[in-house]
């Protein structure tokens, strides 16, 4: 589904990512972990098109997408969420999702049909709201939602674009324990019909969700494999798990 190889990003002399490789397919959650500054967010930003890579390849279903604009990548079926909540805070939940769904709809450029009667987009939006378990809050203005709900909306926004690949950048950031559990369950459910790349710090969530784990340190892949392999990897233990217990 998504194949990344030799991906690098340099900011001047700073090598934020060097020769990163990973792959993910539908039904799989590929978790990327690493200490702060390891280049995880840079990686996600390159996959989503927010940052153009310096070199390397990102293939979606065999098609090269490295260097495309974010909107082009989105329309090819890659949805993403942000570490820092990035929603349309003055719109209602439904408006948020309908807007996202609209970009998929064939009638995006129709000037004279009222948007709130645009059935395909509304259906898609409601489906995303249901998936993100925000039913009943469709007409709440986003800025009035709780933090946890805003994080759910963040996911719902991506879902409303009907993506096949989901890039989730720390979806649990700032959440309480109960909210986190709900979010983990939600992401787990999304596995069946999405290929998911997940960047996360919460160690429990990581091991609860991961099918494949990639550990990044200083912009490079330190190790990649199943959770069990990673746990057993002495390099990872030395460099990472051993020193920073509880906060991977």
């Amino acid at each position: 589904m998504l194949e990344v190889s030799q991906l690098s990003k340099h900011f001047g002399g700073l090598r934020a990512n060097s020769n990163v490789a990973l792959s993910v397919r539908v039904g799989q959650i590929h978790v990327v972990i690493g200490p702060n500054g390891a280049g995880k967010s840079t990686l996600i930003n390159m996959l989503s098109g927010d940052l153009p890579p310096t070199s390397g390849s990102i293939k979606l279903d065999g098609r090269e997408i490295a260097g495309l604009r974010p909107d082009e990548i989105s329309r090819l079926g890659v949805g993403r969420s942000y570490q820092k909540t990035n929603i349309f805070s003055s719109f209602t939940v439904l408006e948020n999702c309908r807007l996202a769904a609209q970009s998929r709809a064939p009638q995006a450029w129709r000037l004279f049909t009222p948007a709130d009667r645009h059935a395909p987009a509304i259906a898609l939006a409601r489906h995303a709201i249901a998936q993100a378990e925000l039913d009943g809050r469709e007409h709440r203005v986003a800025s009035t939602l709780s933090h946890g709900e805003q994080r759910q909306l963040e996911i719902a926004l991506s879902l409303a674009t009907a993506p096949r690949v989901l890039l989730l950048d720390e979806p649990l950031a700032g959440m309480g324990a109960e909210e986190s559990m709900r979010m983990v369950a939600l992401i787990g459910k999304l596995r069946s019909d999405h290929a998911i790349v997940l960047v996360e710090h919460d160690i429990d969530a990581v091991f609860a969700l991961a099918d494949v784990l990639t550990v990044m340190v200083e912009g490079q892949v330190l190790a990649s494999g199943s959770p069990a392999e990673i746990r057993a990897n002495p390099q990872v233990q030395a460099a990472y798990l051993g020193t920073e217990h509880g906060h991977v």
Partner: protein
Amino acid sequence: MHPHSRTLGVVLLLALAALALFPLVGGTFYVQLITKVMILAIFAMSLDLLVGYTGLVSLGHAAFFGLAGYALALLQPKYEPMSIFITLPAALALCAVFALLTGALVLRTRGIYFIMVTLAFAQMVYFVFHDTALGGGSDGLYINNKPLVGWGELTLFDLENRTSFYYLVLVLLVAVYLLLRRVLASNFGHALQGIRVNEHRMRAIGFPVMRYQLGVYVLAGVLAGLSGYLSAAQFGFVNPEIISWHQSGAVLMMVILGGMGTLSGSMVGAFVFVLLEEFFKDDTVFGAVAKHWQLLMGLIIVAVACFLPRGLIGLLTRRKRDAGDA
């Protein structure tokens, strides 16, 4: 996305009725004044499309206003009228092409850059008409006849008649308002508002933001052109000053004074702005201060910037949402 409040609808209908009846009772001067206000209301709504709905603060909107006016002045033969069905589409097409070309450049910039670059492009148009013989230089050009509403020998109605002209402008004002309400409620309109609220996320959910912005830039340019065309036709005179940055500043002031992101606000803004200017200039009221009316205008502008960010409409509607209401 933005349900129209019932009261606003009623107020607008009453205003429409008042405008429709006005020529029956108003003196010639006031009919002309209200015609001008309605033309400016179209101008203000077109700018609001950029400023209020899409979050693009243009300080060069007068360029379109002036281009269309000059198009009429240059197309029409000196001493005979020409069909509005030729000159108007030509003027609007010119604005559309200009918007497309400059839009492709100015939309590469953001924020403060955008403000300055739009200003600079308008200034360039200003100098084209000011410095070259094309449009009569700084003295401008006369339009000796009003455009002909008709074709060949057939005349539908005579715009030389001030009342006819008034009603034509009124009809166009209503048409533009309805058109914009429709457009803003459409997918396209919602995308624009999404761009204003969170341009970055709009890209991430798959919107080619630049294309939408260019689309609205062209639409706004064309509508500003419509108002400029009408204004030139009304006064029969074009001059580089209609492109000056003071004109762009004034229309921006109208938009904010009325309440940006609200079409009705733009119309109210145009009306109040013209009224204030009339009022401050009146030396029977302000005596010697009337000579310095711009001082009063400046104070009002500063006060609006400080205390009335949501404009006059913002005073009336107590909605807490910041999102654009149509």
